[in-house]
């Protein structure tokens, strides 16, 4: 009697569990039902207009010179979650560094020719080591353009040390330069802009900013001028940084060109977002800048997923550098992706990608 009862109870319990579980979960995620449950994709495309041509010059993509030194700094401070303003970065005694400092920086100079014949000039980021960045700004004529108030837009892609802390190199020549930062900047970032120093991290600003500060919203496309827009992504990034913004340009007869600082959101995620939010987003002609794949020459199978998927987007030119990493670029080349090569000068270590002083024109 007890045996019969238990068997019946077991079958009852198991059947209930199986049925409930199937219909609650496994069934819904099966191919047939999944499409009915998932809402249809909504495209909400903004027409950003067109430009005639675009030139992107790499001022500096060498953010640091010795990976081991940088990673030891991070490990010693407690890892990749530690607040960047509290890390004692190595700034001397580095053999491969610039005047012994491991810090370099990232910055790109962009010229966009508009349909009316005028040109807009943009400075993306301002590097890390002010001495190195000032040298590069002088060599590439950026310092002069800043002093003559010829830079129309100064865009900070994100708050990371190697993109933002060299702000003295910009402000020394024009402290009033209007700046655009992404939503997510921490208080320390704004304080640094105003002139505060962070001795432990060896970062300071002796040229307090007096111009307008624009914090770019992440909920919408932010048009800059006809043919150009900024898109901001909310996300936590290593060293306690939050949010990043990047450019979308629409070049007539070519298609969209995406220009990034580090692209922590991932280039595929960026392209998919552009496809949904920008008119013509189905056709990405070129990408330029850091693609944040293997910045420390580390690896993860997720990065292979990215490179394998990139081939499906039909990109014509990949002007990668900086945090893309050499391993990632070697794999891109092996996957026959259209990587634009460089000239290996101004402390860029290899010619397999766009280096310091190289230009990509569209």
């Amino acid at each position, binding site marked *: 009697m007890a045996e019969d009862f238990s068997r019946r109870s077991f079958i009852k319990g198991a059947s209930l569990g199986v049925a409930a579980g199937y219909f609650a979960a496994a069934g819904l995620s099966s191919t047939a039902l999944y499409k009915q449950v998932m809402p249809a994709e909504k495209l909400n495309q903004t027409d950003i207009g067109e430009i005639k041509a675009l030139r992107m010059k790499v001022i500096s993509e060498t953010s640091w010179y010795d990976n081991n030194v940088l990673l030891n700094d991070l490990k010693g401070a407690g890892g990749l979650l530690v607040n960047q303003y509290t890390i004692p970065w190595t700034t001397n005694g580095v053999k491969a560094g610039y005047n012994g400092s491991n810090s370099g920086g990232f910055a790109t100079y962009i010229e966009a020719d508009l349909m009316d014949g005028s040109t807009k000039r943009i400075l993306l980021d301002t590097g890390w080591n002010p001495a190195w960045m000032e040298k590069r700004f002088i060599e590439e004529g950026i310092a002069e353009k800043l002093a003559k108030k010829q830079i129309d837009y100064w865009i900070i892609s994100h708050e990371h040390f190697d993109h933002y802390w060299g702000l003295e190199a910009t402000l020394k020549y024009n402290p009033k330069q209007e700046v655009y930062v992404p939503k997510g900047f921490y208080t320390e970032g704004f304080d640094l802009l105003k002139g505060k120093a962070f001795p432990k991290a060896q970062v300071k600003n002796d040229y307090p900013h007096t111009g307008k500060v624009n914090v770019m919203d992440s909920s919408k496309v932010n048009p800059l001028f006809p043919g150009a827009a900024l898109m901001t992504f909310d996300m936590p990034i290593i060293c306690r940084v939050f949010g990043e913004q990047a450019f979308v340009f629409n070049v007539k007869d070519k298609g969209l060109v995406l220009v990034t600082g580090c692209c922590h959101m991932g280039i595929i*995620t960026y392209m998919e977002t552009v496809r949904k939010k920008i008119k013509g987003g189905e056709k990405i002609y070129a990408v330029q800048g850091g693609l944040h794949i293997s910045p420390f*020459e580390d690896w993860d199978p997720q990065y292979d*997923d990215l490179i394998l998927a990139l081939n499906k987007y039909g990109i014509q030119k990949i002007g990668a550098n900086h945090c893309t990493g050499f391993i990632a670029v070697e794999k891109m080349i092996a996957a026959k992706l259209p990587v634009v090569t460089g000239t290996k000068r101004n402390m860029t270590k290899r010619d397999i990608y766009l280096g310091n002083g190289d230009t990509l024109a569209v």
Partner: protein
Amino acid sequence: MTTKTYDEPVATSSETEHHYEELDKIWLEERSLSNSFAQPLRGLLGFFLSFGFFMALWYVTMDPRGILQWYTPMYGYMYIRWLLIVAIWQAYIFNFWPFKQKWIEETHPLVKGPIMIGINWAITGAIIWIGFFWLIGKFSIPYFSWPELHKVGMTDFFAREYAGLAVLMVAAIASWLAPIWPMAFENYPWHNLTQPAKGITVLCITSLLTIFVYFVFMHPHYMVLFYPWQKFVAAMPWWYESAKTLSGNYNVGWIMCGTIAVWLIETIWERYPFRLIKSQPWRGLAGFVWVLFVALIMFNTFNLMQDLAWGPAYEGGKRLYAPDWRYLHSGELAVMMLLPALVLYFYFDNWPKKFSTEVNLAIRTIIVVVGTFVFNYIYYQISPPLLGTQPGYSHPQQFPMAPVILWIVIMLYHNWFMDGWPGKRIKKD
């Protein structure tokens, strides 16, 4: 594991009276506890005590702003996973051997607790540093060893992280498979052996299964982790076509769900319904299949919930849109489900018990599901200031699994090694 509070009626449904006698019981099942305080004071006291000790241990060992700063994150997470599996071995596989039952019953929790926790830490350290970093890493597979990976050219930081992931995954798989034997099979066919023979036998068989599962489901991850691909030492990740990722996180996700399924079944579901099967090994086999089935339901449900919340992931996407992160996050959500389950079980007497088994289990499940959502919300609101993490869901260097499992480990220390003292005490007959 039924840590009964005998001052209150155990389940009164007719079905529980008819389930069959277990072949083998561990001490935790035979232990009688009496209550020192009434509810909800007893529950709240235990809850906040465990949370306080968790916070202290987190700050000392893991917090990026703390002392040892091991949460980088894999290095610290590795220790946490091994503390968990070693605690399971101590209580479930070895039944507290070499300590005599009389000593365990008569020794004050404040004495026996630190001794057992000390053993737990010592074994964890020995396994990691001698077993993996020295023995296996040096003489067999370098990726299991931080120092050996560094020696062959990996940067020190990533050598520690990569080795940490490999070592922790062994523990993660073991913490899924090891408790199934005493829980579902009741140590059959070795239930009549005495300790330590029984413990060693069950440890060997579950470790053998763990090694097999590791090499099938995780080792291929390491084929693509290093540059160039290590095609002569590991297979191409065979799950790529269906999972849309080469990452082993696909398997980490469902294996974590399996680990959690074991403990949901053991605690709030009281081994229902496979406990109703009369004989072994059928009861054990049904239990194993049940665990797997529940795990896959959880995994699919959490994957679907994420797709509904954020839209589908993209192949090659990063952060919220990375397929491998989504799978990993399903495992993280499963771990978040275990926390309210254990709080209910350990601190609030597995309430309710007065209805039929099905109703009791259904009410507990609803409580745990609601508790999971509440905990999930609170976690992402307060973890940055509390734990030193960063705001947001998809940071590649942080895993909610780590702090949540450390808190769970503290709960196990408190309830397994210290009888839930001071809220509960061993009942003296």
